[in-house]
């Protein structure tokens, strides 16, 4: 009962489902960062986006520098393990090249916003902002009183992005999507969103997915587009497929400090290329091979044939 209508090229998926002014959540916690999708958003010159991400990193630096963003909603901002995002900092500290509104939570606070959105709740209760300065600078951090104990807790409102973009290891043509390794908040952001684009290392037969239904993170019922883009998370990693390209993260520290270098980067690696295939070709087979880990297979599991 396969239905291939959801399989799109990246160009088609972004053209069809990401619109100017949208709230776009690009998730993947250090793992499976949707670089290929982000680059296509830059390439199609989307504007006035509200970008949402637990940990804005290199990709957000690129999206902000390219002028796609009006607002950034986040939990931790940096080049993980390396340093700062200077393009984002220029915008926040000095309105260069343009002002960037920010809306800031802890990781947990933003996770709770996703969960409320995914769960059809208008808010989510948590502990974690009391005594901090966040409620002072973010009017969306409020209080709620427990109807049983009288305790005052924090509360955040539901977040329902217009679009969620997630990268994953594999999906079938209906969009049933499997992820292993770090799961981040991919499932929650997908359920919270109105439209979902899934980018995968490989599109597989549905039998592969259905042979391990516990591994499925995102059900096809909520997926609008499935894009096959091997290597699409580079320079971040895809567990079992490739390692983080740490040299690229270190190199970013130089690029991000210099707007001209960032312009050149975007010209060479984004605007100047049609798609992720060309990106990987430019990157070179050596790099790709260097990043591939030796295999380490999961232990077998038997679901049993019940008939």
């Amino acid at each position, binding site marked *: 009962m396969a239905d291939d209508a959801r399989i799109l090229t990246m160009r088609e998926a972004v053209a069809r489902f990401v619109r100017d002014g949208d709230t776009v959540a690009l998730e993947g916690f250090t793992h499976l960062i949707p670089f290929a999708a982000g680059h296509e958003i830059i390439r199609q010159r989307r504007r006035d986006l509200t970008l949402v991400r637990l940990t804005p990193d290199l990709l957000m630096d690129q999206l902000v520098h390219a002028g796609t963003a009006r607002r950034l909603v986040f939990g931790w901002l940096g080049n993980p393990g390396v340093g700062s995002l200077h393009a984002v900092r220029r915008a926040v500290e000095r309105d260069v090249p343009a002002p960037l509104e920010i809306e800031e939570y802890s990781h947990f606070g933003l996770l709770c916003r996703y969960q409320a959105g995914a*769960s*059809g709740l208008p808010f989510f209760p948590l502990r974690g902002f009391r005594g901090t300065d966040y409620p002072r600078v973010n009017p969306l951090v409020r209080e709620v009183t427990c109807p049983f104990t009288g305790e005052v807790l924090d509360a955040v409102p539901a977040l329902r992005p217009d679009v969620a973009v997630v990268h994953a290891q594999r999906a079938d043509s209906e969009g049933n999507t499997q992820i292993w390794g770090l799961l981040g908040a991919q499932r929650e952001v997908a359920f919270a969103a109105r439209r979902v684009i899934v980018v995968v290392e490989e599109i597989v037969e549905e039998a592969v997915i259905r042979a391990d*239904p516990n591994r499925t993170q995102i059900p*096809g*019922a909520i997926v609008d587009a499935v894009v096959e883009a091997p290597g699409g998370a580079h320079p971040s990693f895809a567990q079992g497929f490739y390692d983080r390209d740490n040299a690229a993260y270190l190199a970013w520290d130089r690029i991000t400090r210099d707007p001209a270098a960032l312009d050149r980067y975007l010209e060479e690696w984004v605007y100047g290329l049609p798609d992720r295939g060309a990106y990987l070709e430019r990157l070179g087979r050596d790099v790709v091979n260097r990043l591939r880990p030796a295999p380490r297979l999961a232990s077998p599991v038997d679901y049993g044939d019940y008939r």
Partner: protein
Amino acid sequence: MSPATRAETMVFAASREVEDGDSVFVGVGLPNLAVQLARRGHAPRARLLYESGVFGARPARLPISIGDPCLVTGAAQVLEMPAMFQYFLQGGRTDLGFLGAAQVDRFGNLNTTVVGPDYRRPRVRLPGAGGAPDIAWNARRTVVILRQDRRKFVSRLDFRTTVGWAEGGRSREALGAPGGGPTRVITDLGVYGFHPETREMILESVHAGVAIEEVRAAVGWDLRLAPEVRVTPAPEPEMLALLREEIDPKGIYLGRPSSGKALSGPSTSRS
């Protein structure tokens, strides 16, 4: 082939409620037969959900319960129950839900909790809520299936387990319910809809050979009729053959047309 029994007509009518591509909360027994039939016919891409945590089940045998292992093997996704309720139901990702009941009232509210006026000292202690309240609250459409008699179609529920159209009119909306409310009640006698304004149950069709007076006798209030009460469409022969030969070949839920025997008690229960 012998003509369709009332139970078979009921299942066929229920199967027509499934639209292609729907995500459907199924339950076992009659609703399961109805959805299997729909998938083999006009709705091949209907997706089966179970509150046990299964999305996109493709059971290789008739499931005995909503937690049958045959629902897991070959499914598209199996997730923990809190996620199933929060994301698929409360999150508004369900198109259609089938429900059974021990009692239903004229506004499609359901009782599966207790029979008798005193909750603390019930005449009959029924199973309780399970997932029914959340299915009825959140699904875009809800269809109630039950074998009909006067003790089940009551003017006043002993306990309201599950909200249908509440007190009718706009009262369901006033409660803040996001889902669409009950659209059909389907029994072994006929098919009911709900009035678009008053939300009161209306007899739309009777199965072949059922007199309207027989229906009235099995309803505990003054039943409204549609302007024209039709005869429920009979299953096409190929659908009937499918039902008898492939979907319930042992007659577990529908009996054999010749013998008339069937498992009736648990057939519309959800677990």
